[in-house]
């Protein structure tokens, strides 16, 4: 692997909580991100993803462990590291008192860039973010997807080497998500390193070359999406429903089906290389589910396997 642009080693962040022991948000995380790579932190809310992102973004001081971004220690080189980053935070912090294009203009200046260059770059980025016709609109009048695209445009104003995206598509409708993914793909093709957090499986599968599954501040697994699915799940999953009162009763009779069986409150998952075969076996044995579905295995299944919980609860 070439010299990593981000390297964390046993990274820890804990917060002092009144009248109890410290709350550990990030509990010894280690990973490396190569230049040009698209790397994901996948996990449920409260897993410590955003905290990790803030430490890498050189705005949150780590409690323990080692961290370098572009070979630099954020404790000492905060402004230097941040000059090479683009940050898309989870919470929108565009300036609502300024117009769309103005948001880019003031932000570009924060990197010490000359006004003329910022203005030129702002126009290019409005084009890229498909917001050129909104240049003089109020930020408040933009849709959620447009605001997010404007935030991405703002994050690119300094031609960053690394783009940090914290839950980039949370709260967006499917169409807006796809537009955003498309823009991120283009950046990836241009060689920008992407580091993103998400609790959406499909997003991780779409965008990440490699990812870590994070839960309760720790890394549960690391690999490419396909790799993780191969390791922790089967090729296919058969989902069957027998009705909420029947599921657990039927589950007892499903021993020996597939590689593994998981009983959820509303459905039963059978992990197998061929979902159809399992379903045929089931019907032959006189079990008739109300609904059945055979699908490709996903990171959701990986997460369920690793933690025994669903990602979105």
């Amino acid at each position, binding site marked *: 692997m070439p010299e990593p642009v981000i390297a964390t080693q046993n990274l820890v962040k804990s917060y002092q909580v009144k009248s109890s022991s410290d709350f550990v948000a990030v509990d010894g995380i280690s990973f490396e991100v190569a230049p040009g790579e698209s790397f994901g932190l996948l996990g449920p809310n409260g897993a410590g993803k955003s905290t990790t992102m803030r430490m890498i973004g050189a705005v949150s001081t780590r409690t323990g462990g080692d961290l370098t971004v572009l070979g630099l220690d954020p404790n000492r080189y905060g*402004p*230097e590291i941040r000059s090479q980053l683009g940050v898309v935070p989870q919470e929108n912090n565009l300036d*609502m008192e300024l117009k769309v294009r103005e948001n880019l203009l*003031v932000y570009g200046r924060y*990197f010490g860039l000359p006004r003329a260059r910022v203005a030129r770059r702002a126009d290019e980025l409005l084009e890229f973010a498909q917001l050129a016709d909104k240049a003089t609109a109020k930020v408040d009048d933009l849709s959620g997807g447009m605001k997010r695209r404007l935030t991405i445009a703002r994050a690119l104003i300094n031609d960053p080497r690394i783009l940090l995206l914290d839950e980039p598509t949370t709260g967006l409708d499917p169409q807006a998500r796809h537009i955003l993914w498309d823009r991120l793909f283009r950046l990836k093709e241009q060689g920008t390193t992407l580091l993103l957090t998400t609790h959406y499986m499909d997003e991780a599968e779409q965008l990440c070359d490699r990812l870590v599954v994070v839960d309760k501040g720790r890394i549960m697994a690391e690999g490419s999406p396909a790799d993780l699915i191969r390791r922790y799940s089967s090729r296919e999953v058969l989902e069957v429903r027998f009705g909420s009162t029947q599921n657990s009763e039927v589950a007892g009779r499903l021993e020996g089906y597939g590689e593994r069986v998981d009983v959820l409150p509303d459905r039963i998952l059978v992990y197998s290389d061929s979902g159809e075969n399992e379903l045929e076996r089931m019907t032959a044995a006189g079990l008739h589910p109300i609904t059945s579905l055979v699908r490709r295995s996903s990171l959701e299944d990986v997460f369920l396997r690793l933690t025994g919980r669903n990602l979105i609860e």
Partner: protein
Amino acid sequence: MSTLSDNTSDGIRSDALAAAVAQAARTRRYGSWYVAEHRFRVMRSYAQTVLFTAIGSPLVYLYAMGVGLASLVDGNLGDDAVNGVSYLAFLAPALLGSSAIAVASEEFTYPIMLGFKWNPTFFGMNASSIQPGQIINGIVISVAARMLLTCAIFYIFMLVFGAVPGLLGFVAVLVALLTGLAFGALVMAYTATLKDDTGQLAMVQRFIILPMTLFSGTFFPLDVLPPYLQWIGWISPLWHGTELSRVFAYGMPEPIWLSLVHALYLAALLAIGWIWARRLTADRLNK
């Protein structure tokens, strides 16, 4: 630069390092001004309000108090009503200081609450090469500019109304600026401690700014008050500022050490508020 490249061995890393250092160098130096630039752009969106209050308030106050009320005072006490000058000349430097306080109470409260909470732009700034202290510096710079404009316009009206007998009267503008910033820096720091505004900022307006304006030797000299109320003046930046302004505006008799105390007291408040606000901001942005 030389110290930075010490701990690097391979080419890629030191290239990245050199690029990062070069790009951040300007922001390390001028970051506060970039924040001020941002604030100016925001102020431009309410420029009409800024100008309207800067022109309207001296007109209204100087006329109502300085001419209307003054005719009553001077009618009773003569043209050398207070300190041996007309009531208008006595009052005008205090109103000038109050106008600076008014700008401070506007610009150092809600915009701070906004930046941390309601529209958390400070977090956005902090994600760039800007450092937390520079955010505070930039705000102080931009508010100082608006305050200076407001006070300068106020002073022009003072001249028009014939309220400035002294030749050094213009120094009162700078004293008013110092007064407004000294008070404002403390208010800014206090606002930075607020996780939420559940009426605290309105309380500041009602229970600090209003009494301060009334009991700071603004409309009558402090020694007219009973002794147990005079302490309000002594701790009030407005009183110190007003007294100092009067020295310049019409040569109010005062020992020089006392004038120095006024200046130092204001400078100390400004320093304390400024440093406190910078620290609070650094803590609050480092989540």
